[in-house]
């Protein structure tokens, strides 16, 4: 049983006009097996929350804390956070020219498991992860995210989620740019990871449609850099009907 605890998190970024505060005190606790949906309008700071937890250098933490099973996440380097059990599925996965998917996956698995996976079992593992996500085997020989369609990038992210087996996953707008079939396939991948690894999920989204496939236990409405309302799955239905207007105008 793992717990990710975010307390009073304040984050700013440097801009041409000086430092701008984006997160204004975020409190959130996620336990193994739980799915928390964070919903909010564009520009509310949802992605900043995701990248700050993962340790992107662009963001400066100005207050608060993030702990995974009591360990201070903010004190860790980016790779240490991954080793501690955090995973970020990115909205815009980055191209790495000249590095094949298979080389990348094996390097990551070696880093996270502390030893190189045995070749024979590893090949089978990757093959079944790719099949489960309806991916062409030739995918493994392509360069990381280079020339991938939007859907391929998201499947590649979820394949990593299944292979690398983190304790806590942050999914940053994984649903964006996916058609209905791809959304279903990707969602099934997330649900498998939840079932197999007792994964805790922080699901960041703008729209409610992914929640039909990945059922949240909790819904948090995010606006202007903090959580402004919390509830159960029914809160998502309310957002579907009324939009974010109530929260933005406040």
């Amino acid at each position: 049983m793992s717990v990710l605890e975010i307390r009073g998190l304040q984050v700013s970024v440097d801009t041409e006009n000086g430092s701008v505060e984006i997160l204004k005190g975020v409190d959130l606790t996620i336990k193994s097996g739980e799915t928390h949906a964070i919903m909010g309008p564009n520009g509310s700071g949802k992605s900043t929350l995701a990248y700050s937890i993962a340790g992107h250098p662009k963001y400066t933490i100005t207050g608060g804390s993030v702990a995974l099973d009591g360990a201070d996440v903010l004190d860790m380097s980016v790779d240490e956070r991954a080793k501690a059990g955090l995973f970020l599925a990115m909205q815009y996965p980055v191209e790495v020219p000249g590095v094949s998917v298979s080389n990348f996956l094996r390097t990551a698995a070696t880093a996270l498991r502390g030893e190189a996976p045995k070749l024979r079992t590893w090949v089978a593992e990757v093959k079944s992860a790719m099949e489960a996500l309806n991916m062409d085997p030739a995918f493994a020989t392509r360069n990381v995210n280079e020339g991938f369609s939007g859907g391929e990038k998201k499947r590649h992210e979820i394949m990593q989620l299944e292979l690398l087996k983190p304790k806590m996953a942050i999914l940053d707008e994984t649903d964006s740019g996916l058609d209905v079939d791809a959304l279903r396939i990707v969602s099934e991948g997330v649900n498998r990871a939840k079932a197999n690894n007792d994964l805790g999920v922080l699901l960041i989204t703008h729209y409610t449609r992914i929640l039909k496939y990945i059922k949240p236990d909790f819904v948090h409405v995010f606006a202007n850099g903090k959580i402004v309302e919390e509830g159960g799955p029914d809160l998502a239905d309310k957002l579907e009907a009324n939009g974010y207007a109530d929260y933005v105008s406040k």
Partner: protein
Amino acid sequence: MSVLTTNYLTPTGREEAWRFTPLKRMRGLHDGSAIVGDRNSLVTKTGLPKGVSFSREALSPLAVSDDVIIERIRGEAFDVAHLSIDAHAEIREPIFLTRSAGALDTAELSRVRISLGSHAIATIIVENIGETLLAEDLEISLSPGSSLTFVSLQEFDAKSVYTARHHAVVDKDATFKSITVTVGGDVVRILPTVEFTAPGASAELLGVYFATTGQFFEHRMHVDHAVPNAKSRVNFKGALAGRDAHTVWIGDVLIRAVAEGTDTYELNRNLLLTDGARADSVPNLEIETGEIVGAGHASTTGRFDDEQLFYLMSRGITLENARRLVVRGFFNEIITEIGNEEVQERLMERIDGELERAGA
């Protein structure tokens, strides 16, 4: 032994062709003060397949040169190491040439000829290794319809000085591909040059270089489109790390008035891995006719992409390994063109080692 004759013009560093080169570190190769040793270091590494011969003979130069060092070599060295591939021979395994001797207190003036008979196909890999002071006039002749992949690996030890012209003369419908790799030496200056003598010829000049602390590597292309309907591609990628690492890439492409139907593109990309390094990149396209298929060039110089490093590290990969992956990936596109796993892996390991030494 003899002293190089000095009745040639000596570069001063003010000439366009010499303005980047640190002449003081050339150990007298450029001004004739180097003492010429008695060595012919180029040898075959393994037995030669049928249809291939290697011998020393007197040959007159294939092409004129305006490089003062090439002129000196031609004035002093009469024996030419000649690797010859018979017409219609298809050599599947790469032919390896390597260096059997070297010295820093004396210079070697080397003349090399590689010739392919008509419709011959071969891959030649030259391993330039060891500690040496070496000036080389290497000429390649491709008969009609022949196809050569020429790989030159500058894997010299730290103090070596190598200055050379690698000149290819490409005849009708012949295909020349060169991969120039420079990862070792103190001063390395190579002129990969191509002239087309008949339509339908094509040349692809690929290269990678990685200079670390104090190293100077210069690659100065010249592609002469003097006939119609020839095609050329140039793609050189370089990385630099450490104080006073300096690389120079010059891409001169000339499309003469008669060269209608020319198709050319040249590209140079540099990755600056630390502060204190300098990459000069000068594409230079001269076009004397508008009746061409295409002509273009691009040059970029950048640093590590933080987003790439973040992405890799977010999967548990350490910063050091993430950098290594990115640099390997950067060079991969060209290194894999060599087509020999053993050589490719050796080069990648050397690149890893250089990266580590430079603390990048």
